Each structure stands twice: as C-alpha cells, then as structure tokens.
C-alpha cells in the first residue's frame, strides 16, 4: 500500500488549479444546478462539450476524467436501457421482433458463460459488457430456429430515445463537473474551503473548524486503516478465513472477523491520537492561527460571475417556451 494517493488530485499549474477552492466548490454546485434546468439533450451536449474544453485547456487528461465515471457507468447504462425500453411516447422509430427460441436461448447461455469466464482476464470491463449486451440482442433478433415462446415486439419510441439520451448525458455531465473539481483541488484545500463554507453553521453551535479537523483526520487515516485491513485479512486468511469465495452470507460472516478487530484497533488508535493531540496543546474550540490561508483573487470572482451567468441562461431557457 505504499505511495497511496488520496483522491483523484493531479498536481498541476493550470488556471483551474490556481482558482480558490471556495470558488471552485461554489461553481461546481452552481453548474450542477444549471444542468438540472436544461430540458433538452442539445443543451446538455453543449455543456458537456464546454466542460471537456475546460478539461483540455487545463491540460488534464480526459482518460483520468473518464476513469472518474467508472462507478457510475453501469448505473447510467441501466438508466439508459430502462428508459429506452419502457418510455412509450411519440412515434415508433424502430421496430423489431425478438425471438425466444431454443437456438437464441442456448446462444445467450453460451455467451454468458464466455462472458463471465473472460471477465477475469480483461481490463476494459465496461466495453466488454457493451459487447456482451449487443451479442445478446443480435442472437435474440436473428436466431429464430425452434421457437419456444411467441416473438416479442420491441418498439423504440422517439421520446424514449430522447429521454434516455438526455438522462444518460445529464448524469455524465454532472460527474464530469465534479471530477473537474476533484482533479484540480488538493484534499487539504477542499477541507479548508469546506471549513469556510460551513461558517454560517456557527449559529447552530456547530464548529466548522472541528468539522474540518474530522475530515482531515479521516483523510489522513484512510491509507493507514486500509493497510491495517489488509494485514488483518492476511492474518485471518492464515487462520482459514476465506474472503473471496463462498456464498454471500458466508462472505458476510467472514467479514465480521475483519470488522471486529478493525473496530477495536481503531478505538485504541483514537485514544492514542487524542493523547498525542492533547500533548500538542490542542484545545477544542480554542482560537487558532492558520498555516494555510485561502486567498480570494479577482479571477475567482470572474469564474463565479461566468458560472452564475451560465445558470441565469439555463433558467431563461427553462422559463421560455
């Protein structure tokens, strides 16, 4: 677990890196809100293009940004297919018959087996999933020999296609916007900005400095605790635990043997850390000076004005027919 890198931050010197993290967080939120005001897919595509231009001009790699999409790819694919199949508004633009025949079902079984076996050895799993899904579609469409059930009429409607593309691209655009933030902002800067943005919470007796400290400590201990988890997993594996195979229930049971020691160790750790913090003169709620001071620049104001105008435009488009 050496050289663990926190978050997705890529060191750099671009204008996006240099913006104040507060400006970046606020802009991100404003842009996301703006995206939700768009009603048609073209506006979304234009904003996606703008975001990609931002990415490129800041010399960020597009591959990194796409990697940020990873956790949401499967979700967005399912949203896409769901909308495509079940939204029945507008004209029919595509129609085909799907056959559930002996040949097509056995072909699907074969493809599924090959898919799951090959999955272990492949890197581009998402592309492979797309290939898998289209192979299923092709076999359902063309292999009609020895029909078992009545053929299914697949209709794709205009609105269905529009909405599915719209939802798909909206999701991707929103993830891209947040990736833009995390790629260009250090976790420590993010924490400082969150602390500043939470200042109004002081009215409710919530101390933003404490929130920031909690985030910092959590960030600092992620690699340490991960490291520990691996050690304990190894130790339990040496005693016969198996975290990788077996039924779901069995694996959840095995997880208990990981979680209990993790909790115990974490409590001990927090005790020792508390002592260490106290001995370094930490007093909760006492005023402190700050080593890192955020500096608001005219560029940050410019950035905020631009995203606000963008939001204004989005609202205008929403209100106008």
């Amino acid at each position: 677990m050496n050289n663990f890198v926190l978050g997705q931050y890529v060191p750099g010197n671009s204008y996006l890196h240099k913006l104040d993290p507060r400006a970046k967080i606020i802009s991100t939120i404003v842009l996301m809100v703006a995206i939700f005001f768009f009603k048609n897919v073209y506006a979304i595509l234009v904003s996606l293009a703008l975001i990609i231009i931002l990415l490129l001009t800041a010399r960020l790699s597009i591959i990194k940004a796409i990697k940020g999409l990873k956790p949401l790819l499967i979700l967005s694919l399912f949203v896409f297919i769901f909308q495509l199949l079940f939204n029945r508004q507008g004209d029919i633009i595509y129609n085909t018959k799907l056959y559930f025949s002996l040949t097509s079902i056995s072909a699907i079984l074969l493809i599924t087996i090959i898919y799951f076996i090959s999955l272990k050895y492949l890197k581009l799993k998402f592309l492979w999933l797309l290939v898998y899904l289209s192979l299923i579609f092709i076999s359902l469409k063309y292999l009609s020999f020895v029909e078992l059930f009545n053929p299914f009429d697949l209709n794709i409607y205009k609105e269905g296609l529009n909405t599915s593309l719209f939802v798909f691209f909206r999701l991707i655009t929103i993830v891209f916007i947040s990736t833009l933030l995390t790629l260009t902002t250090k976790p420590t800067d993010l924490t400082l900005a969150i602390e500043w943005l939470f200042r109004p919470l002081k009215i409710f007796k919530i101390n933003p400095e404490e929130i920031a400290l909690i985030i910092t400590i959590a960030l600092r201990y992620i690699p340490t605790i991960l490291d520990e988890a691996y050690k304990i997993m190894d130790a339990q594996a040496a005693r016969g635990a198996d975290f990788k195979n077996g039924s779901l229930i069995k694996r959840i049971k095995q997880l208990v043997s990981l979680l209990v020691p993790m909790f115990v160790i974490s409590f001990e750790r927090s005790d020792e850390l508390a002592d260490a913090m106290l001995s370094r003169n930490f007093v909760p709620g006492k005023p402190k000076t700050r080593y890192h001071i955020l500096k608001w620049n005219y560029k940050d104001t410019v950035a905020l004005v631009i995203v606000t105008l963008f939001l204004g435009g989005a609202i205008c488009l929403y209100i106008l027919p």
Partner: protein
Amino acid sequence: MLIEVLNLVYKYEDETVNALDGVSFNIDKGEWVSLIGHNGSGKSTLSKLLIGILSAKEGTIKIDGLALNEENIYEIRKKIGIVYQNPDNQFVATSIEDDIAFGLENLEVNPQEMEKKIDDALNLVGMIEYKYEMPSNLSGGEKQRAAIASILAMEPDILILDESTSMLDPKGREDFINVVKSLKEKGKTIIMITHNMDEALLSDRCIVLYNGKIIRDGKTLDVLLDYDCLAKSSLEMPTSLYLFHELKKNNYKNKEVLNLLWELASKK
C-alpha cells in the same frame, strides 16, 4: 530544578492497586534520564501525569517552577513534548508540513513565522525532503523523526520519549537515537521511557520503577550494573555490562580486558 515531582499517587478507576505509589524525583535542566521498568510498572502513567492528561490523586508536580494544576496546564504542555510509541497514531494531518503546523496553530504562532519554524524543525531531524510527503508513505523511523520535528517546532524544554523506538527497525532506531543525541547537545532535557537497555545506557541517569514505586535512582552505570535490581524488574543488563559484571564476579584478573569493556559500556 526543571522537574520536581513529590509523592505522586495515581490509581486507575477499575484497578485496586495504585499504578503509581508515592513517586518522588527531581530532574535538572539538560539531563537525559531513562525511565525503566517492567510492563505495567507505571512508566507511561507517569508521562501522562507529567503532561496533565491524567491528574494525580495525591502529590505535586512542578515544571520549571510552575505547579501543575487546572489553570496552567496549557502553559506546562508548552514546555513538554511527547513522542509516543506507535508512529502511526500521532499524525493529525495529511502531510508532514501540515502536521507540524497543527501544533504551531494550537500555540497561535503567527502564520508568517510558521514556514520557517517548520523548515528549522525538519532540518534538525534531517527530514526536510519529506516536507510535503504523506505520513503513511514514510517508514517507521522516518515517521518517528517527523513526530519529533512536530514537537521540536513547538520548542519545548522537555522531551519525553515514550517507548518511541520500540516499533522501529535497527536502522530507524539508530537514526532516531542520533537525533536524540543531537538534541541533548542542544541542551534539551530528555526523559526516555524504554525497554531497550542499550538505549538506557546512553542516558546520564536511570530511574527504575517497580510496581509504581521507584526502587532505584542513580547514575546510569551504577544502576545498570545492579544485577539484582534489574532482575527484580525483569530487565536485562546491557550485553557489555553483563560481560563486565560476570568477569568481575569470577575474579577475572586481566585489567586490560576489563578496562576495555568498561570503556565500551561508558562510551556514548
């Protein structure tokens, strides 16, 4: 006297025996004192009492003339820094630089002076090139030296090392001890809690704790040559001293060999 401890008594809530039972000692400025004893003899309890994390049932602690109490506890913590045993459990921030800044922020040091103090502290322990590194990417020895830097930046007079080397490999230990030696030369007072007798040998003075009581307090060589006292505390004599002790006991006559061993043991 920099540290004056008189008749200290402490008992943990869920235990029947006193963890510390009438402990008294004084430590001078610039002394390097080893606190040795078996597990559970009260060494770490003592360090927690000195810095006011625990408060004593009876007895007084005076640091630099200030009696430890609720009001001046923060004044006293400014004078004492502790490096703990587990290198992983003392870092607050995600980079060494920010971690050192944590202590300085607590002391309300002027932000403009912080950078210089951080660099100075890192230079003292030879870790300047790790300034922007994440703590989890360092080795154990590097972490402990960084932990010393975090404490040195706060400029305490007294440094307590609470079994700080026990989780380090030999190289990490050596680097760490070299830093401690250089600090001693700069006039810091060092209290070293340790199980490692070769480390204890480096100090000026040894205090042996046994079941919460001080059973021996004296010059390092005198204490470490007291075989019975060490055996009682389940401690081992350093190898060189043990050889000296055994040879002498068996009336070994060769003065030259004995002198050589003695020199070896006293060399710091």
